[in-house]
């Protein structure tokens, strides 16, 4: 700015010195040593130059109160030669906001104190209302009594510079506000000497320092960054790297508290010197939250661990129990059965009818008990066996089961209706067990019908349904819906074994297997009106539950 002013002042002085500030009015008074043509050339060039510099010049006669202006100045002012060029006319051009100030300036500073005119002011085009900024310069000429005669000077259109300045100021304000209001600490360092140039309020707050305590000090003097910049060598390293980031580092506040921060530092160039900007985020709360999450996770893991241990212990006990059942419970049954048999052989069938029947009952009971134990062991084994998860073609599986089971029905009249079934994911041998159980039941409970009707199907899939639902329907003896809840229980039977044989483990196995696949089982039926057994299997492969 100063340089610029100097240039203009110099230019004016040169103009005056070389008497090139020619105005039409004064032309006759000038004594010149050059030809008219040369003069014209110089004037033309001057006009050109003034245009380039957006300059105009004027002569203000204090005696008359009128001023004369160059064409360039008329352009800047937005007036023509008919404009009334007196003081009021000039003030008319001055923007209303500055009119009073400029009027006073002219009166008090220029005309009274005889100072040089040097003022940036806003003008307004009297016709269009367009606003501009100008820089006016002028020198007074005094007579022998030191009374001002006239003022000569130039006026430059500085609108663009002003706009840039305004934009700059606006930008500065914006960034200043960011700096002031940021919820991150910001520290600006001079990269040459490590001195603190600025620190934003938030940083002062988290570190508990005052602005004065920080400004102008070097970072290693203050010591709050001592883990990064404890001395000049550290600082030099930071300066060289240009960019440093620490996810989690401790800072020391003025009262020796430790806080945890995330620290990012960038080196950048401003004009011809380097500045380091450090962004410092207080992560104490975040770390606390993280700690808490970590602790909760650990607790959770511990709890899972304990539960798993408990489950494992329970499983072990169950295993030991079934192992013991497997070994120890069967032996006495075998003995009962064996020795009853030996008794029969020994008596050589000489027992009376009643005694024979007793012996048969003992033998049958032992066998039944054996069957129950076997079923129970199977059931418990099923709960412990590892599940496979494979794709299963149910159509093939059902076809195979139906073929095998039909061959055992001794020519019964059976009408099969088997729908096309979708593919599922599950344990193939377990799923086979489910279907065998359900189909065997259907065959068993339709045994009393002249014609057994068995449907194996799939409930049409609705949108977004997460499972496939299958069913086995028969026209058999059905069941009283009142006892539906007992159907899937272990050793629960709705028929006497004289009517329909069985231990009551089949549907319990079905439920167990389906549950382990993440599915459900249910049934519908009415006495003497057939039954439908449903089971669902989730579509997703991952739904198969771990043991």
């Amino acid at each position: 700015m100063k340089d610029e002013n100097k240039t203009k002042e110099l230019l004016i002085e040169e103009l005056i010195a070389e008497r090139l500030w020619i105005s039409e009015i004064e032309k006759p008074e000038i004594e010149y040593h050059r030809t008219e043509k040369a003069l014209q050339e110089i004037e033309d060039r001057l006009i050109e130059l003034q245009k380039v510099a957006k300059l105009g010049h004027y002569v203000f006669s204090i005696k008359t109160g009128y001023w004369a202006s160059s064409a360039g100045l008329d352009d800047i002012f937005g007036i023509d030669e008919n404009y009334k060029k007196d003081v009021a006319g000039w003030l008319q051009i001055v923007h209303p906001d500055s009119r009073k100030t400029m009027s006073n300036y002219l009166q008090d500073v220029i005309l009274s104190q005889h100072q040089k005119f040097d003022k940036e002011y806003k003008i307004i085009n009297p016709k269009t209302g367009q606003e501009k900024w100008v820089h006016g310069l002028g020198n007074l000429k005094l007579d022998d009594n030191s009374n001002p005669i006239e003022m000569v000077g130039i006026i430059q259109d500085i609108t663009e510079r002003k706009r840039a300045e305004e934009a700059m100021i606006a930008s500065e304000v914006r960034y200043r506000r960011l700096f002031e209001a940021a919820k991150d600490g910001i520290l600006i360092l001079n990269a040459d000497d490590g001195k603190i140039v600025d620190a934003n309020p938030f940083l002062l707050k988290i570190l508990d320092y005052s602005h004065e305590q920080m400004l102008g000090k070097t970072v290693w003097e203050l010591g709050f960054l001592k883990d990064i910049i404890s001395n000049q060598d550290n600082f030099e390293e930071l300066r060289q790297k240009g960019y440093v980031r620490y996810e989690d580092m401790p800072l020391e506040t003025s009262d020796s508290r430790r806080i945890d921060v995330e620290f990012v530092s960038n080196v950048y160039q401003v004009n011809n010197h380097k500045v380091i900007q450090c962004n410092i985020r207080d992560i104490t709360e975040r770390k606390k939250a993280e700690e808490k999450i970590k602790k909760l996770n650990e607790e959770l893991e511990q709890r899972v661990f304990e539960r798993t241990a408990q489950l494992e212990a329970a499983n072990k006990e169950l295993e030991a129990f079934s192992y013991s059942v497997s070994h120890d419970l069967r032996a006495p049954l075998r003995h009962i059965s064996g020795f009853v048999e030996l008794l029969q052989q020994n008596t050589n069938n000489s027992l009376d009818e009643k005694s024979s029947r007793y012996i048969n009952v003992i033998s049958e009971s032992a066998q039944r008990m054996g069957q129950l134990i076997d079923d129970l062991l199977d059931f418990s084994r099923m709960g412990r066996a590892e599940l496979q998860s494979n794709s299963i073609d149910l159509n093939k599986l059902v076809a195979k089961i139906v073929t095998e089971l039909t061959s055992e029905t001794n020519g019964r009249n059976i009408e099969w209706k088997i729908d096309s079934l979708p593919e599922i994911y599950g344990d193939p041998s377990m799923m086979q067990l489910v279907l065998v159980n359900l189909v065997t039941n259907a065959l068993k409970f339709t045994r009393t019908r002249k014609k057994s009707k068995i449907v194996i199907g799939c409930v049409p899939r609705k949108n977004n349904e997460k499972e496939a639902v299958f069913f086995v329907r028969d026209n058999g003896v059905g069941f009283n819906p009142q006892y539906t809840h007992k159907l899937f229980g272990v050793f629960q039977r709705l028929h006497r074994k004289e009517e329909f044989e069985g231990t009551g483990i089949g549907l319990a196995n079905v439920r167990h297997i389906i549950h382990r696949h993440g599915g459900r089982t249910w049934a519908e039926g009415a006495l003497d009106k057939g039954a439908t057994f449903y089971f669902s299997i989730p579509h997703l492969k991952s739904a198969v539950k771990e043991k």
Partner: protein
Amino acid sequence: MSVNKHILLVEDDDKDVELILTALKSHNLANDVDVVNDGEEALDYLYRRNKYKDRTSKNPVVILLDLKMPKVDGLEVLREIKSDDHLKIIPVVVLTSSKEEKDIVESYKLGVNAYVVKPVKFQKFIEAIKELGLFWLIFNQPPPV
């Protein structure tokens, strides 16, 4: 049938012993059975120590081995036999009440030659024992001693 061919029955339950012997007897195979009542005794028998230090008979053509026994159980006996260079050539048949998968797997891992679950039903039990006796005493060619 050679008198040298005999079975070693390792069984702690004397009722089972009686049933097994009865079954074998009904097929004239019972004379060829030596019975020991637990794992420890079985090992004494095989290694000819303690009570059996004066045993002169050849090793059995097959060992019928119960699993659940006091002191030394069947799996331990099996492990001993199959890790002994002289004994491991003797066929061992586990004869047990247990259908537990882990027993079956463990037995085969240790090198058992057969695994038979004692049926609860007497007729089937008799059948099984008869088959075993006939197979191992009559049909099977034992390893050369």
